[in-house]
């Protein structure tokens, strides 16, 4: 048989891909239509689990938090990361030290990040105590224990973790921009801020698309950070879907409901990824047809 060795070499991967990435997903989707509790049963219940899911206040809070994270974290990382990249690109001293400082959180686990921020914002320990020790006794910084604000501390910690990624990717994009473009901007006397906004930003489209994709999946998968920082509390104020699924799978013994939640998660992934993929595909096709014609 032709290419037999190559086929044998790829076979284990093909098998794993098929079993884990196709089979297990199908299984999970299947389970979401059953009444499974702690062990899988094959009692078809239609969309009952989905009805129960969207009737659960905890799930709705999770979804709301995912939306807040999605907007706050992705937006925050893009803005902060682009600003950091721009400022680093101004031929500053100690550039490599600065880059090391901005990117190192990305090397840390979400567990470590979560604890670091939990302590940093801890009322008896961190920022609040520091301000009070300075003599500002009225200063209260109760974000982490305020039901309405706790989710924003998670946003802040996540930005701290991920902004460096945007900085690194965008800086690579900035360094790839043709020097002649900058010369043209200089000669036309276009102010730097204007150039970064109207000329350079559109040119960095692919870098930003990659960042958005990576950050958005970070949001959907977000589990460890919440576990370490708030454990989902106070109450269930900082629950997120990934944590909801984990809890119902392994602690609350409701596999059917958890599978329904997981299925919603993967639909979210598709909803985020599809437009970006489509845009890229469309752009490459347009570029290809333009170079032909």
């Amino acid at each position, binding site marked *: 048989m032709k*290419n037999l*060795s*190559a086929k044998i*070499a*790829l076979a*284990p*991967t*093909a098998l*794993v*891909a*098929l*079993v*884990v*990435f196709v089979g*297990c*997903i199908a299984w*999970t989707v299947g*389970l979401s239509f059953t009444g499974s509790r702690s062990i*899988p049963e094959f009692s078809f219940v239609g969309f009952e689990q989905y009805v129960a899911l969207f009737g659960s206040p905890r799930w709705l809070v999770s979804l709301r938090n995912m939306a807040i994270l999605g907007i706050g974290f992705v937006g925050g990382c893009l803005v*902060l990361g682009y600003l950091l990249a721009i*400022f680093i690109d*101004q031929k*500053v001293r100690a550039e*490599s030290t600065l880059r090391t*400082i901005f*990117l*190192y*959180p990305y*090397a*840390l*686990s979400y*567990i*470590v990040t979560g*604890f*670091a921020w939990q*302590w*940093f914002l801890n009322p008896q*320990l*961190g920022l609040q*105590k*520091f301000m009070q*020790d300075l003599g500002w006794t009225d200063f209260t910084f109760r974000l982490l224990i305020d039901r309405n604000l706790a989710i924003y501390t998670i946003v802040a910690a996540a930005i701290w973790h991920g902004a460096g990624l945007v900085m690194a*990717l965008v800086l*690579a994009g900035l360094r790839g921009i043709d020097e002649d473009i900058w010369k043209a901007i200089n000669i036309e006397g276009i102010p730097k801020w204007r150039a970064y906004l109207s000329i350079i930003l559109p040119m960095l489209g692919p870098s930003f698309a990659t*960042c958005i*994709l*990576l950050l958005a999946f970070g949001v*959907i*998968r977000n589990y*460890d950070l919440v576990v370490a920082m708030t*454990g989902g509390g106070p109450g269930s104020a900082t629950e997120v879907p*990934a944590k909801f699924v984990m809890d119902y*799978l*392994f602690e609350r013994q409701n*596999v059917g409901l958890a599978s329904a*939640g*997981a299925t919603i998660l*993967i639909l979210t992934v598709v909803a985020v*990824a599809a437009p970006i993929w489509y845009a*890229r595909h469309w752009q490459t096709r347009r570029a290809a047809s333009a170079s032909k014609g």
Partner: protein
Amino acid sequence: MSEQVLPLAASTAHHDGPRPATFSWERAGIYAFLLVASLFFLLPIYTMVSTSLKTMAEVRATNVLMPPLAPTIEAWGAAWNQACTGLDCDGVQVGFLNSLKIVVPVVVLSILVGALNGYVLSFWRFRGANLVFTVLMFGAFIPLQMVLYPLVRLWSSLGLYGSLPGLIAVHVIFGLPVVTLMYRNFYAGLPIEIFKAARVDGAGFWRIFWSIFVPMSAPITIVVVIWQTTGAWNDYILGLTFGGRENAPMTVQLNNIIASQTGERQFNVEMAATMLTAMVPLLVYMVSGRWFVRGITAGAVKG
């Protein structure tokens, strides 16, 4: 005519050589922004380091932003071999060893399988290979929660659940899409003529792989080592789900230590334990420098 031009020309006529550097608000603003940003990124880690070097008495007396007055590594020692997870008080060294036992085989296996996959997908295109690649890339994007439960059932029935080989296997599987992509992109960037020349010389599938492409793969292998080491070390969810009590990696143990604290919390020990958990990826990051960024970029070009 020259008289009319003179006043203007005279004011600038002495300009010669480079423009002298003058104080500029723009430069000052740039450095001010970078300074504030650096503080934002450094303060949380500074908090942990300074607290971990204090005694509990000092922690109570001062606040986290104060530097330690009499630095001591007592808390680090306690974190390493005394911190308690429930009733076991052997410190984070247990988790450290577990993480090592997980990460080393994961990295080695990922390289072997990833390089082979990348090689097949770059040069030996046959019907179905593309489909495998597409499914694999899809796998790079799915949330773990989507496959976790079926995989737990599968692993139980295979007798792998809760065992070290079982945990290593899931790490390799979930690392496979990105590692394969890295090798595939790397090989696809090499001139195809190298492959064609080797075929014309009569070399077969395995010989071309071992004699020609493996020796050329050092740059991307470094990137993969960095990527998989930090990734596997920082993992929490797989270790939690598949590790069982025996094989809990450092992140899981750290969480257990901190979550199971009763009575007065030993903040200095907790922070020392956290720093110890962060140490390996931080070291990899510091040592690898630009390679780390390359790893992100290589892993980022999905799709």
